[in-house]
């Protein structure tokens, strides 16, 4: 799009949207948010950028092929779900690891739940960007 106002605005929005998408991803653990909505917001950031620049520039900024991003995400999500059966629990049962936990302090929690959300985030981000860039090429 050939508008100075949009270009300047897009550069600002691009960063803010990306940070916000990560915020939504992490917040989703106990509050509204999560990988799906985070991924959508992240994709919007790149779409805004694609509209202000062009497809080639967007691919450069993204650095990796969006399709690869989506498949990596899907793999991560699937593996996090399979962790449960690995330790004789149900499918997609959350697995928790508390780093440096002591009697009084529960330490730094790491969970397969977040891993699943990150997988979903990457899947949605990659899939939506791939679709939109494909459509942009046709238009």
């Amino acid at each position, binding site marked *: 799009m050939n508008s100075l106002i949009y270009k300047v605005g897009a550069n600002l929005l691009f960063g803010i949207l990306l940070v916000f998408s990560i915020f939504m991803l992490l917040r989703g653990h106990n509050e509204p948010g999560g990988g799906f909505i985070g991924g959508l917001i992240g994709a919007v950031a790149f779409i805004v950028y694609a509209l202000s620049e062009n497809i080639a520039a967007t691919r450069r900024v993204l650095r990796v092929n969006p399709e690869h991003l989506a498949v990596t995400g899907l793999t991560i999500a699937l593996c996090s779900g399979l962790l449960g059966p690995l330790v004789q629990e149900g499918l997609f049962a959350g697995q928790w690891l508390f780093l440096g936990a002591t009697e009084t302090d529960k330490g730094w929690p790491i969970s397969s739940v977040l891993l699943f959300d990150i997988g979903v985030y990457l899947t949605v981000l990659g899939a939506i960007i791939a679709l939109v860039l494909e459509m942009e090429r*046709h238009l």
Partner: protein
Amino acid sequence: MSLVMLPILIAFTAAIACFLTRRTGLDRFISVIASAAHTVVSIQLLIAVAGGQIVVTQLGDWPAPFGITMVADGLSAAMTLITGITGLAVSIYSLSDLGRRTCFSGFHALFHLLLAGVTGAFLTGDLFNLYVWFEVMLIASFGLLVLNKRPGTLRGAMPYVALNLLSTIFFLTAVGMLYGLTGSLNMAHLRVTLDTMEPSLTLSWISVLLLLAFGIKSAVFPLFFWLPAAYHTPAFSVSAVFAGLLTKVGVYALIRVFTLILPLDPLLADIVLWCAIGTMVIGVLGAAAQTDVRQILSFHIVSQIGYMVLGLALGTRLALVGAIFYLIHHIIVKANLFLIAGAIHRIAGHTELKAIGGLYHARPVLAVLFLIPAFSLAGFPPLSGFWAKYILIQASLDLQNWIAAGAALVVGLLTIYSMTKIWGEAFWKPHPDGPGGLDHRPIPTPYILAIGGLALLTVCIGLFPAPFFAFAEQAAADLIDPTRYIQAVLGGGA
């Protein structure tokens, strides 16, 4: 590991594996193997639920109303199996149908993602989770639509996506309202909670929104027009799997939601009944006006959807048996007809009826293989479509609903008109360019395997309908009285 999740996990794993191997040519074989595995697991699932058992898995070990429940009852298991069979036929067929370029861009990966979405939608026992599977399906199917880089494809894909997003908004609004009203999204728990509530205006609104949402998905009159616009442009393998499965997920959702969660009240049932009759009639008339094989078949999907929704609208046990029987029969027959359209295109060079002909003399085997699903679609005895229509008409007559019975009969007749049109133009009349217009290389073996296999299934259902009928009857009984479903999901305490 739980049997219920296995088909979904297989599909997801296959999607990843196919993507990674898409440049080596291995992906097509992985695709066939994975579809076969999907089918085998689904047969096991079907055996596990035979006799009215209900198999339940609570994801992440969260107990029922809180976590996501995956449930397989008779209907779900049957639909899962039919998904596997269609997937297997299409993946075999695509061995010869697709060029390397389409495979490069990840056809098989998207195809298995689509199968995962469809299977998930059939097996979930959670209303919001159903929405998630719809999204998986939508993303995969949109990807498949734009794979084929011809200009017309995107034009067809646009109304498809736009209307599906609209449907999503209706669906989410209804889900939000239901959650606000009951505090639950688990289908079984929703029913228990709603049973304690008085009928209210809010509940009617929720029903209407859900009707609109699933009505768009299943292409019911007057919300069907996106379908004929989208289904005749993509590769034949793609359109076959769309034609077989996608709209049927909408029909399944209608049946599931309006028997388990919110049984239709008389006024809504009347509206649905008229929509069903409208769908049947408009679809078949639309088909009569078309001259492209895939366009004709697309309009017939719409018309056939009407029969299934009619079963839901009538609401008796026999009518639901008819709807379930129809779903199973229709997926096989319709996917097969689209595969045959692909074979016609390969041999005669086109699917526009004016531009082709002479197939009967050149390819008598294909002609016979066409007649089986075509006559089954029209409801000739003793093929599967005859029994499906017979049960539904019997159900309408039992209710003394002469209009529904009459419409079902007339639409059946008009279906024969369309099928004889394809027969006469594509098979009977000589090719307009003479024999030189035909491709005289033999039909690829994968084509024959896929088309013949599905045709054999159609004949089997037609000749031995009793076990299928008994199974559908058990499934329908569980739909009308969901006590056992609810008990299986929520445990004895509910």
